[in-house]
């Protein structure tokens, strides 16, 4: 028998026995009731393209290795579990589909869910990375009782969102979370029951580090019940005051104030014309004012936007959307208006417009453009501005003739001429100098030349001036090139760029012309 020394403090004392007041007094200060929603597979399920018949996992980096963060049910059925190395998972199911964990997307999705949950209560708390807490005491009447509200939540989750979820209800947020995380859907109405309900849970579910969990397990502690038996001061000394504090919060022994979710701000401005509008000038004028409102909104919050949406409504058709995007976040309404003008110039209105809506979200913090110390003061600023001006010019160009119409030439380090440059739509940074000695004017496709006396022939004889330059490269990409290039002259004096294939055919091609 273990002896109890006198110094033993009673672990987790029960709340002091307060004389129970009359029942109506209790009704006046109702205990809160927390409904926890845990989305155990959110990291995976937020990928909408995830096929349901292929085992899948979301993967995180852990100490330089890829390990499983979340496994789909199919994957779990084949033995894949969290924290397993991805390679091991592959060994278990070779057809595994792998997604990286995307924390930002998870946060966004959780915020969306929080927004959705606001319909049930105004007190929604977001618990990263995959849970929500809803205080539902105040909503019970409105929704017709706890089971009814639960049912509605579950139904919407199943039908609308289709995420796996676990939920539990208790008087304290942490207890609800803990139960939900453990996959227990208990409903506990009074704090007094918490100790015995939570006592059955494994310490594996505690939100403490793996090392601390291992230390707890080493001492033979498996369940929270075992923890209740340990002295609080001893626990705090070994596992930190946070653990004791957390358990006290879960049992409702100390208060646990939470921040509530607030829907993010969006800018929205709307203007309804008194009459039908045909003229784009007028549209531009009105939109310009809306944009000015937006700028004001941005200034007040010291933020700026990457893009905003202008929607034109008429009576019959769906809204016409105009997206104004900028390369560098801005709050310059003149620039935005200019861009809008370019868009409107290209627009042919199908029907007269009745109203305009301007919306903007996804704001970024405003970072004033900093100028180099040595370029100041003014005269040289022009240099700096030039670059900005080019960008503005490019944006204007893009807005006027369409973003597809502007392309950039990049040089790419590749021995194969046709791969040595690439055209891309993105307005990328300045391209490097093209290294190879090849003409700028390449034919879109090399052009097969006829031969006379084993010599290439292009509307006449061709003289090889310089070469060969042998290029053998690209086998790894499936586009193996083996050619001897020559600079040649035709009888019109044009400088040609020819090559001969290094295969059994030895065919000649014209690949480019020198300017």
């Amino acid at each position: 028998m273990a002896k109890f020394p006198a110094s033993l403090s009673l672990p987790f004392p029960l709340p002091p026995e307060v004389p129970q007041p009359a029942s109506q007094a209790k009704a006046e200060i109702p205990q809160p009731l927390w409904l926890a929603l845990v989305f155990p597979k959110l990291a995976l399920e937020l990928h909408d393209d995830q096929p349901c018949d292929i085992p899948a996992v979301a993967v995180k980096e852990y100490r330089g290795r890829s390990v499983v963060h979340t496994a789909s049910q199919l994957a779990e059925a084949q033995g894949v579990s969290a924290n397993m190395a991805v390679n091991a998972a592959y060994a278990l199911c070779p057809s595994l589909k792998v997604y990286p964990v995307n924390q930002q997307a998870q946060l966004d999705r959780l915020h969306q869910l929080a927004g959705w949950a606001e319909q049930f209560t105004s007190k929604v708390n977001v618990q990263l990375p995959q849970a929500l807490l809803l205080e539902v005491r105040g909503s019970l009447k409105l929704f017709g009782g706890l089971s009814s509200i639960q049912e509605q939540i579950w139904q919407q989750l199943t039908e609308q969102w289709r995420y796996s979820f676990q939920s539990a209800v208790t008087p304290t947020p942490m207890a609800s979370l803990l139960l939900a995380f453990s996959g227990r859907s208990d409903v506990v109405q009074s704090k007094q029951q918490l100790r015995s309900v939570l006592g059955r849970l494994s310490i594996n579910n505690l939100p403490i580090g793996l090392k601390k969990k291992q230390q707890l397990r080493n001492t033979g502690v498996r369940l929270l019940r075992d923890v209740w038996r340990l002295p609080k001061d001893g626990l705090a000394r070994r596992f930190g005051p946070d653990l004791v504090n957390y358990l006290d919060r879960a049992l409702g022994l100390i208060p646990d104030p939470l921040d509530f979710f607030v829907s993010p701000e969006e800018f929205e401005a709307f203007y309804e014309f008194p009459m039908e509008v045909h003229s784009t000038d007028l549209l531009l004028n009105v939109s310009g004012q809306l944009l000015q409102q937006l700028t004001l909104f941005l200034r007040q919050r010291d933020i700026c936007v990457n893009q905003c949406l202008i929607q034109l409504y008429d009576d019959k058709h769906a809204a016409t959307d105009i997206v104004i995007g900028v390369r560098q976040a801005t709050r310059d309404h003149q620039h935005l208006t200019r861009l809008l003008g370019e868009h409107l110039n290209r627009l042919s209105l199908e029907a007269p417009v009745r109203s305009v809506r301007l919306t903007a979200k996804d704001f970024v913090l405003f970072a004033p453009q900093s100028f180099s110390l040595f370029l100041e003061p003014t005269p040289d600023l022009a240099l700096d501005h030039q670059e900005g001006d080019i960008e503005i010019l490019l944006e204007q160009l893009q807005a006027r003739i369409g973003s597809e119409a502007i392309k950039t030439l990049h040089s790419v380090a590749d021995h194969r001429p046709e791969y040595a440059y690439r055209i891309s739509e993105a307005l990328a940074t300045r391209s490097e100098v093209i290294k190879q000695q090849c003409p700028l004017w390449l034919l879109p496709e090399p052009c097969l030349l006829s031969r006379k006396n084993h010599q290439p022939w292009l509307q006449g004889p061709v003289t090889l001036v310089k070469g060969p330059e042998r290029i053998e490269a690209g086998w790894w990409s499936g586009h193996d090139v083996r050619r001897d290039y020559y600079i040649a002259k035709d009888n019109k004096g044009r400088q040609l760029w020819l090559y001969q294939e290094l295969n059994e055919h030895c065919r000649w091609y014209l690949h480019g012309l020198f300017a």
Partner: protein
Amino acid sequence: MGCSHDAKSDRARLPLYAELHCISNYSFLRGASFPEELIERAARLGYRALAITDECSLSGVVRAHIAAKEHNIQLIIGSEFALQDGVRFVLFATDRASYGYLSRLITVARRQAEKGGYYLTRKIVEQHHPEGCLALWLPEFKDAERKQAIDDESLQWLVKCFPQHCWIAVELLLSGDDHQRLQTLLTLGETHHVPLVACGDVHMHRRNRRALQDTLTAIRLGKPLAQLGYELFPNGERCLRSRQRLQKIYPRLLLEETVRIAERCRFSLDELRYEYPRELVPTGHTPQTWLRELTERGMQRRWPEGTPDKVKKAVEHELALVDEMVYAPYFLTVHDIVQYARGAGILCQGRGSAANSAICYCLGITEVDPDRMQLLFERFISRERNEPPDIDVDFEHERREEVIQYIYRKYGRERAALAATVITYRARSAVRDVGKAIGMSLDQVDRLAKSIFWWHRVDVIQQQLHENGFSLHNPLIKRLVMLVRQILGFPRHLSQHVGGFVISQGKLSHLVPIENASMAERTVIQWEKDDLEALGLLKIDILALGMLSAIRKALGYVSAYTRQSITLADIPPEDPAVYRMIQQADTVGVFQIESRAQMSMLPRLKPRNYYDLVIEIAIIRPGPIQGNMVHPYLRRRSGEETVAYPSEAVRAVLSRTLGVPIFQEQVMQLAMVAAGFSAGEADQLRRSMAAWKRRGGLEQFEGRLLQGMKARGYSEQFAQQIFNQIKGFGEYGFPESHSASFALLAYASSWLKCYHQAAFTCAVLNSQPMGFYAPAQLVADARRHGVQVLPVDVKVSEYDSTLEFADNQSLSDMANTKPSLRLGLRLIKGLSSTGIGNIIRVREQRSFTSVQDLATRAQLNRKDMECLAAANALKSLSGDRHRAYWQVAGIENSIPVFETPRFTEGDVMLPKPSEGQNIVADYATTGLTLGRHPLALLRDRLCRRRIRKAEELWELNNGSKVTTAGLVICRQRPGSAGNVVFVTLEDETGQTNVVVWPHLAESQARELVKARLLAVQGKVQHEDGVLHVIASRLEDLSQWLGTLTTHSRDFC
């Protein structure tokens, strides 16, 4: 045919050519061909000579040298360098002296850099000027835009360094402006009065290695091919080009100049003469007279009552041969090293053909008594082969470093260095590197590499990939397979040989370049063991052997408690009790005959004497097993089969092994007496045997063997049978000379086990890691033999495991009582050796009173304390494991000024650990338990599944179907057994041997590789007292072990 005739005469009219700038794959991850391939190709193309000019290395030249002799083409020894400032040039050795300087320059450059790199500046080249070398300046066309722009300042420097010995390399590789380049260089040559010469910057022997060369570049630069861009060569011109092509590309004069250079490079590696260290001979003696003197002294020591005539004769015979071959210094060198070890109390033993000579026995290099051995080792040195004798010396593994440091001390780093081992691409590393290069994702590459199991041979890679869901039609996989095939066997880097030392009289760096090894204070030469052998250079293998450590320790313990000093030589020979034990396969922990294959053979072979052990050790090897030699030998030994010899000559060779060739020496002798091979040819056969699986090349011997035997009147059937046996031997044939030395240690360790089990187990535990068995099995075996084993206890245990005697015993009766074995602190996984040191030091002052007291006084960190708690070593201070952990977790980190802890805590209500928890924790922390076996706790559950115990299997009939289960304690795939996997299972009643055939091993690879607790369905097979279960289905029950620790899942 007319056409080819024309070609031939054309070729005669072509200008002669010698390629002067050519790197092999010994310029690691640059060259894409083996030196042999380059030589062969150059010879075929009719080159006059080929220079192998690997970058700051001579690693590949010996192989090139051998190939050049074979293909009758001149090899030029050279090396390419890039200085820190970017200047690049090639140097060629013209004679022995300049070769020495070249080797020295490489050594200097290599020794100043990290392993694998080199550091060279103009100043170093000037300081260590390679006198007599020819230099070839490699112009760098830095600016791609203006290729004429060239920095001729570096040329001027090189010309100053090598006046009249300098050329400009003209490398025209179809870059598009070859013409301009040539003009630029011509002008440059005129300006500086330097001749020009044609070269090809060769990186591969054939154009079709272009993809591999690109891949090597990608691996070297650590980037996928698609991202390399201009870092790849633009084309595949850097190959050995035909002379017709060269004629079209280069002016004739430039081609002819190559031959003039080649003619000035007259040096051949054959000129290297090795000189043995001389300091070992006292004045007044020659090496030979001194060797005779030492041998005679040894003879007197070995046979104080007079040397047997047989031995005397043998010694005289050997001495005469040694004298003739001038090998006396070699024996003296080995003798000196062994003397040192003896003096320092380090147990050692020689092995190898020369080691088991009568001379070596007299010199104390080996303990194989020539009198006892019927003098089998007469032909330990071959006159014809002119090959240095071979002696390997094994030392205690924990003390070999002392011997190595002695050699460095005695001869200096200038004169002694380790031989290199070239690390080459194996299937898995090849798949990994090539996969990355061709742009597969890391996950894919890992998955691929893992899918290639370690037991798979090269030829099944393709099949493996297919089975793992990689489509062979996928172009990526096709390229992968193609490149992996090419890259297999390619050298990757140099590493140090396990112990091959080269010692010379003069500076070693004049013989072969020396470079830094990865281990600090270690240097390696750039040549491998085979290279040394091919050039006839001396090499002594200083090897490490765990069993020698264990035997020395055990002898020490026994000497201490029996109070009489016992040495290896005092162990009584041929003790019948020892052989009885061996015949029962009761050999856990003893040397060599402890493996499961050996153990299963012991009851059949029933060794009765020393020579039986020699055979036992050699016969249970992949070679004899694959050559189907085991069963005939067993049948003949048991008298089921009669032995007939086709001739007296064959009888002389094979009679000691009942007509079955078991040893490598016998195969060589057979080739000589039955097929008429010369000793040199027989040795070539031995080498080809070692390599034919990898490279082929045994076919050339097949015809000669068969014909030779036919000509000498042997039947075709016999000849074919011998050839098949030779083939089966492959690279695994075991020499009798090694087996004889090993058998001595096998006997000695068996004797110790037989009479001093506790001391023996204690010594083996204290020499870990070594041998075949883990501590758990060694301890379990000791307990089965009645040794009382005491747990690790922080209050009592020493660093090592120790022997304990009952307190009331007086010293005098210690000799007659059985000691107990107290496990040592070193068995605790993760416990630091500083921690152990502190515990023992502090404990001497005052015994520990509490966990806090221990932690404070021994200044143990939390991790050490946790390890102690986990190992239950704190039990005497804290009570059970859970309480120990709780107390450890509560230790105050700050070191208090006063030694008393600041406050005391009362007892806490912690659950008591269950038996299962304890056992599993025991296994996890010390790898062994003194409690019940884990399987005993699962027995009820196992019974419900009708799973039988190990001991029950013996009651079943041969062929019965059965299911058994146990902890997987060993998985083995002997190279010989054709992909069969042997698994040893252990339960509370003993061990079971399971045979898993290849098809099952592959279809249930996961269970086979991963299970810690494995259930096996199969058939019982027993014969000659050996029991196997032939598996038909495997089941992984590992999760059952998890449940032993109640509900946690942490056992791993």
